[in-house]
């Protein structure tokens, strides 16, 4: 049995009837599970498949397709830097490199302190305020390296003290 909190289970129960065919709810369910667990485990794939009366492969094939779905946990905070043309023209690559330096981490991994995952993602649709960065669910605009350093400091300051985790 999957370990999901009651709010997630309620959201799942509410969303399934939005569709005449249960299978349509697979993407919403994957979102809900990932929001709670941070990633999609084998167990989650099996559970979602049985909840929607489809085969596990029908869930797995989506997890491997959609860039936002993950098979592994990420850092406590998720930094997504836009890589696409308008942001790159305005210095997005330098912004991304700055975040990596600040947390001593490569792309897609978890920083040594467990604090962040830095990712390069494709167009975030805010090209007029490039370069843009999403930190968790929040969009930050005009993020040059100086602003990247300031945002990194905020993340570090908000981190739980080492040892208290």
């Amino acid at each position, binding site marked *: 049995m999957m370990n999901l909190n009651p709010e997630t289970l309620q959201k799942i129960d509410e969303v399934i009837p939005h569709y*005449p065919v249960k299978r349509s709810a697979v993407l919403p369910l994957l979102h809900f599970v990932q929001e709670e667990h941070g990633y999609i485990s084998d167990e989650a794939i099996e559970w979602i498949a049985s909840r929607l009366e489809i085969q596990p492969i029908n869930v797995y094939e989506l997890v491997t397709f959609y860039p936002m779905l993950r098979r592994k946990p990420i850092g406590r905070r998720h930094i997504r830097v836009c890589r696409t043309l308008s942001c*790159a023209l305005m210095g997005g690559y330098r912004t991304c490199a700055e975040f990596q330096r600040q947390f001593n981490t490569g792309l897609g991994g978890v920083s040594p302190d467990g604090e962040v995952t830095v990712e390069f993602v494709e167009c975030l649709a805010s090209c007029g305020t490039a370069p843009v960065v999403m930190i968790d669910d929040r*969009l930050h605009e005009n993020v040059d390296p100086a602003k990247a350093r300031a945002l990194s400091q905020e993340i570090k300051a908000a981190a739980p003290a080492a040892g208290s985790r």
Partner: protein
Amino acid sequence: MPAPEQHRLIFRHIDEPGYSNDLACYLRSGGYEVLRKSVRRRPEELVDEVKKSGLRGRGGAGFPCGVKWSLLDRKSGKPIYLIVNADESEPGTFKDRYIIHKDPHQLIEGIMITCFANRVERTYIYIRGEFPEGAKILERAIAEARAANFVGPDILGTGYGCEIYLHRGAGAYICGEETGLIESLEGKRPYPRIKPPYFPAVLGLYQCPTIVNNVETICHVRHIADMGGDAFSKIGTPNNTGTRVLCVSGHVRRPGYYEFDVGRLTMGQLLNEVCGGPLPGRKLKAVIPGGSSAKVLRFGERYKGRRKVGAEMVEYDWGVEDIPMDFDSLAMVGSMGGSGGVIVMDDSVSMVEALGNINAFYSHESCGQCTPCREGSLWMQRITARMAHGGARPEDGALLKSVADQIAGRTICAFGEACAWPTQSFVAKFGDEFAAFGRQKDRPRSDAEPELV
């Protein structure tokens, strides 16, 4: 000639001080009055208004909205669905973001008028996964509208009912393609469907007749229902009616969103006057006029031919600055108005690297269903990345072209064209730069920190 004034129809309230995205504010600004008026009319009248308006889709293809609606199979007896395409994923485009975040009720009112006109009883808004805040705002707005009987089982006491549900994507560009979107909504991998037979108007969501319209298009429907199709058709220019939100990004002093009557503004007015021109000390080099898949235009080149003005055919001889920003003019110069995303590059940009950036996007986003696109987009990405990182050869331009030429027209969906057009146009227009790239003394070293690719 000075640029005309902005005409803000869709973005009227976007930057208005004190304007918020809740129902109370929308109602204070006259919100849902058009819906009230519309549900007292015959649905066919509303469809006719949209046909008369000449509205063309704002998502990318510019297909006439009224025609799309009239293709619906209304005899099948199956339910008709509306899907609002809020996947906004064409690089350079960011108009729907502001509508969703700042004026969601305008979209909902447009949806309900569209639904009433087409007897739709269920709508899905497919919103891209990268808009989590937008999704929350829309969820709240839908709930507010439902509580006020603008959405739900009995709209404004008419007995007509329609539900709106939000469906979040998960970061895949291909879900902006309407049949890929439908597959995604059905819970499958978003592999686009082949047409024929899978025209959404006949065999769409759950094999039922389906309308798929862009967010901005749906908002225009609200204004057409308000002012009438004839009045709307007088805004803009013939065959390019209404207003259009242009999203400008890249190397200009004032990037951002601007709304103008379609075709009343030239590229030069947009970039030099409205957006303040190039950055200090720089010159404009190239512009992509309609989202990153549109063919690039090179400053300094001339476009000549004959075009129809009123009833007459007249000669035109345009520089990039002279091109009117409408669907037909941009098509005449070999590019497209697409999604309205204008990406500007100045003389600091290496076209090889810029193409490398674009190719990285399309190779990442190819769904992998059709071989020419899956393999071709990948090879174009590899070649341009190799060039950008020190391994350029003089023959690479020709090699790139040969790959691109084998993709367009050989795939199930228009992604094949979308990924081939940048390479074809960059190489055609900046071939000298591609040829010289390998010989350049100052070409990027393989260990240099990447700037664009």
